[in-house]
């Protein structure tokens, strides 16, 4: 909203400089975002909040200024007062008074359409408006001065030279001033002549009935329309104008005659017109909203901590046009009834009055204070463990990603979702948006992986080959009936390329499935969960044979593995990409593993390594569980050493080396004692699994 400093001074006696004015307006909530010189004038760029349509004019801003310095608005008497009233009451007929609360019309005859004088052009240009012709410029000028949108018709183009205000009929059309033909319906208010719509009420006039160079007789409309209806019409027609902007926020219904008179006076003066008949149809009289306050000073103190005497409160409120009702004392001596002025649509409750008092008394006068203590601070239950998990992943070289919660529908198919997220019995399992601002992205993600893989691709496009990313965020799934969708927090990883060293460009070992698994184990371990395991399992988006379920205890919480060729091809990945996704909310919901101290060994142990040649389908897990099956108490630990495949072994074989540790709590074991035990374990494992020891 642009406001001219010189124009303001026409309306108010003020000694405030340009800078002081900007500063004071900002202080009371009319944020001056910039001051721009224009000739000998200065223009304020004011950012108005949506509750203050009364300040969408110079008069409105002047009113705020008047409160600040307790100065006085200039009272402009109009010479048009006393000009003839219409004899013919049929000039204006309001059929739908629920949508048109007041309508005034002024006839002006012998008007000469032409250019506006320079002072008028300058004023309009200062606030960024373009001059068109004298009558159009005057209506525009008065709107910016007094806040009242108005419209001028060519009287001679109105059938029967009269106005009917009614709902449009379905199927009626009108070509508006912007030369677009618009379809009206019976929920829109139209200004009509005897036959047809000549304007969309409060939004835009019709082209056919508008002012042209040949116009001589003008009908000037100044009216008040129902706010919600103008808003709805404007949205429906996708047509927002300066007029609709003001009408839908609310104009001053009591200001119509002043505005009409001001415009009439200017048209007579600048376009040679003669003021003729005037009619004011006012079916829905303004009643000020009443706000009750037992003690405005106390209310101000209670809500803001400011000490403002009742006298000062009332001075501020009065200056803003909020007056104490004459009936106040009669109706209830215990409280005061304030009446809101016709230009304020936002004063309804005592708190609104408090805000008016506080902003003019000054927010800067409110003393800083901390609230009294109450209770102890607390994080979200899983936050601190989540933090450890984040730090752990970062230490392992993972960068934290955040991606959009909505993804492209095309991503749905290939991904195996974490267990129990989606209700398979539903016809519509997912949450979908009606539309999006990013093309195609209407699915509320049921998996984080598409976002992460998109990020992997973006980084690869920037010549980065070695990438480790993780994200913690919510995914969504539909629930049956009318229930709100399910929201669940997941952890996802994506990694590809080789190991990186800080500060060194040469890469190390290529990453593989065990890096993904290791990261999950380390991350969960850092959050106090050590009982993480993996079990071979075929997830749809993972490559067969390199795909596993992630378990905590015996609960499956997600999947880890190498991205399948099929999915990799969708992203044009030409190197192996490993991903993992798991239900972190469930993982962290439990208490975490208890730690129980085990006494330190007093005697040294004996370690024996043994390598088995196994078919590839035989897993380490099977070997280790066979070892414990044997049940040798002195065998304290069986651990993985290495795996080997290649030269010296058949194609379908690999060699797995494990280390068995023998130890007694009573004595130092000898080789002779250990040997038969070790042999017994090795024999049983080879027999049970049908495998052989590698020699």
């Amino acid at each position, binding site marked *: 909203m642009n406001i001219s400093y010189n124009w303001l001074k026409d309306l108010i006696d003020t000694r405030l400089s340009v800078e002081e004015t900007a500063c004071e307006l900002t202080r009371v909530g009319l944020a001056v975002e910039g001051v721009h010189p224009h000739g000998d004038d200065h223009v304020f760029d004011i950012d108005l909040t949506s509750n203050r349509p009364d300040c969408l004019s110079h008069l409105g801003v002047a009113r705020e200024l008047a409160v600040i310095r307790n100065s006085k608005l200039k009272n402009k008497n109009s010479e048009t007062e006393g000009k003839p009233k219409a004899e013919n009451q049929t000039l204006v007929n309001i059929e739908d008074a629920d949508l048109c609360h007041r309508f005034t019309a002024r006839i002006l005859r012998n008007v000469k359409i032409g250019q506006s004088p320079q002072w008028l052009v300058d004023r309009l240009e200062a606030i960024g408006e373009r001059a068109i012709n004298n009558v159009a410029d005057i209506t525009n000028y008065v709107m910016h001065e007094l806040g009242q949108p108005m419209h001028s018709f060519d009287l001679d183009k109105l059938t029967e030279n009269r106005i009917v205000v009614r709902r449009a009929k379905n199927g009626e059309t009108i070509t508006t001033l912007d030369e677009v033909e618009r379809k009206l319906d019976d929920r829109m208010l139209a200004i009509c002549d005897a036959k047809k719509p000549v304007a969309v009420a409060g939004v835009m006039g019709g082209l056919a009935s508008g002012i042209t160079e040949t116009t001589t007789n003008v009908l000037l409309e100044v009216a008040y329309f129902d706010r919600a209806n103008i808003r709805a019409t404007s949205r429906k027609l996708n047509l927002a104008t300066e007029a609709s902007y003001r009408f839908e926020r609310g104009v001053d219904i009591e200001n119509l005659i002043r505005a009409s008179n001001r415009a009439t006076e200017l048209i007579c003066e600048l376009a040679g017109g003669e003021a003729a008949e005037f009619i004011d149809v006012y079916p829905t009289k303004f009643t000020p909203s009443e706000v009750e306050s037992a003690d405005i000073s106390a209310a101000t103190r209670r809500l803001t901590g400011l000490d403002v005497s009742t006298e000062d409160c009332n001075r501020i409120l009065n200056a803003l046009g909020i007056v104490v009702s004459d009936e106040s004392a009669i109706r209830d001596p215990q409280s005061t009834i304030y009446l809101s002025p016709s230009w304020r649509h936002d004063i309804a409750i005592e708190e609104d009055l408090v805000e008016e008092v506080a902003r003019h008394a000054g927010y800067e006068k409110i003393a*800083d204070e901390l*609230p009294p203590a109450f209770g102890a601070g607390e994080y979200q239950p899983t936050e601190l463990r989540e933090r450890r998990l984040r730090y752990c992943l970062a230490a392992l070289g993972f960068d934290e990603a955040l991606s959009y919660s909505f993804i492209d529908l095309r991503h749905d198919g290939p991904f195996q979702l974490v267990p129990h997220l989606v209700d398979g019995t539903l016809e519509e399992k997912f949450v979908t948006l009606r539309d999006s601002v990013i093309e195609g992205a209407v699915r509320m993600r049921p998996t984080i992986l598409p976002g992460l893989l998109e990020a992997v691709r973006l980084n690869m496009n920037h010549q980065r080959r070695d990438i480790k990313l993780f994200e913690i965020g919510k995914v969504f799934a539909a629930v049956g009936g009318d229930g709100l969708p399910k929201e669940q927090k997941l952890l996802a990883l994506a990694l590809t390329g080789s190991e990186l060293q*800080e500060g060194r460009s040469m890469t190390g070992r290529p990453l593989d499935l065990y890096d993904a698994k290791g990261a999950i184990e380390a991350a969960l371990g850092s959050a106090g969960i050590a009982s993480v395991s993996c079990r071979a399992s075929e997830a749809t988006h993972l490559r067969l044979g390199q795909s596993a379920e992630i378990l905590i205890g015996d609960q499956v919480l997600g999947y880890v593995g190498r991205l399948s060729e099929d999915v990799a091809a969708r992203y044009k990945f030409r190197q192996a990409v490993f991903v993992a996704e798991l239900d972190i909310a469930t993982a962290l919901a439990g208490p975490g593993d208890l730690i129980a101290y085990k006494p330190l060994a007093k005697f040294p142990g004996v370690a024996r390594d043994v390598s088995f040649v196994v078919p590839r389908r035989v897993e380490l897990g099977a070997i280790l569980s066979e070892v414990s099956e044997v049940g040798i108490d002195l065998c304290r630990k069986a651990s993985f050493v290495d795996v080997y495949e290649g030269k010296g072994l058949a194609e379908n074989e690999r060699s797995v080396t494990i280390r068995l540790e023998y130890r007694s709590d009573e004595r130092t074991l000898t080789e002779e004692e250990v040997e038969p035990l070790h042999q017994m374990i090795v024999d049983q494992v080879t027999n049970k699994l049908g495998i052989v020891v590698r020699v």
Partner: protein
Amino acid sequence: MSEEERQIQGIREAFEQEFERFAALNLDGMALSDAEARLQELRELRIRQTGKRSAIAGAMKLIGRVAPHERSAFGQLVQSVEKLIAGTIDAAEILLSDHISAARTELERLDVTLPGRRPRTGHLHPITILRQRIEDIFVAMGYAIEDDREIETDYYNFDALNIPEAHPARESQDTFYTTKGFALRSQTSTVQIRAMERRGVPIRILAPGRVFRRDTPDMTHTPMFHQLEGLCVDKGITMGHLKGTVTEWLKRMYGPDTVTRFRPSYFPFTEPSAEFDFSCFKCAGTGVFESERCRPCKGSGWIELGGSGMVHPNVLRSCGVDPTVYSGFAFGFGLERMTALMYNIDDIRHMFENDVRFLEQFR
């Protein structure tokens, strides 16, 4: 000169002759391996010249042949030659050894400016870093961190927040809706309602989270972003407490000299309402940094951060809280904006592109 003395003289001359190539040895720039070979030769020479079967050792036997009155003088002569030989070799050996150890040090000298050996460290997202810092400050001030639904009903997203049907914020061009008619929350204020319903009052909570608005992505807008919402409701809470709390938080965040400014504003869910600014962390509110216009605050000295106010009585009522007994304040702001200001990020779309070149700049 006696025969014996001549013999000693001969030994000495023979030594000097053999030692000559060591005497003339030029160590400058001599390679380590050469020096080591020379040292080896020198040690062999020492054995030859000073060992049990050396000429000088044999000369000691001559003492018996010398006339008794000359023995003492002769003995001294032999000893002096012996000393000369040993001393000369010692000196040469020290020189060589020093050279060798210096050369070896040089050979093993490391470039300590090479990077330490460690795996590349990953980085937390700047939004996470900031969120955690702010959470820590408010937990220390007795606030509970709340997290809640991202998909909401219109009731929680609008009605309960006193945003009426006709309010511009409610128009569907600003809000995402699911096909079933649920809204993606357009502000974290929804958590005010959920938390008050769940916890009752008095209450002090801080709710960080994702919010969604139908903005086409550009330098300063993304359709998804993060807000942080604070709420404090109790008996006797005033705007003074709001100002005190926000100021305390920003002082802990940006240093004790930080000052705040509250300006009247309008939000449907607060009355009175205020926007809050704080003195620029870069130029300390002067508007000038390194004699140029300060960037984060655009030279104004103030950074506009968020919205705040006293919780609207309708909001309290919709949570079953009596506004004549309780009052409260709420404030909220966007984390992306704060992050962008702090790190001088010119395009907030970077926050969700996950370009590692972006992510690795934060820790």
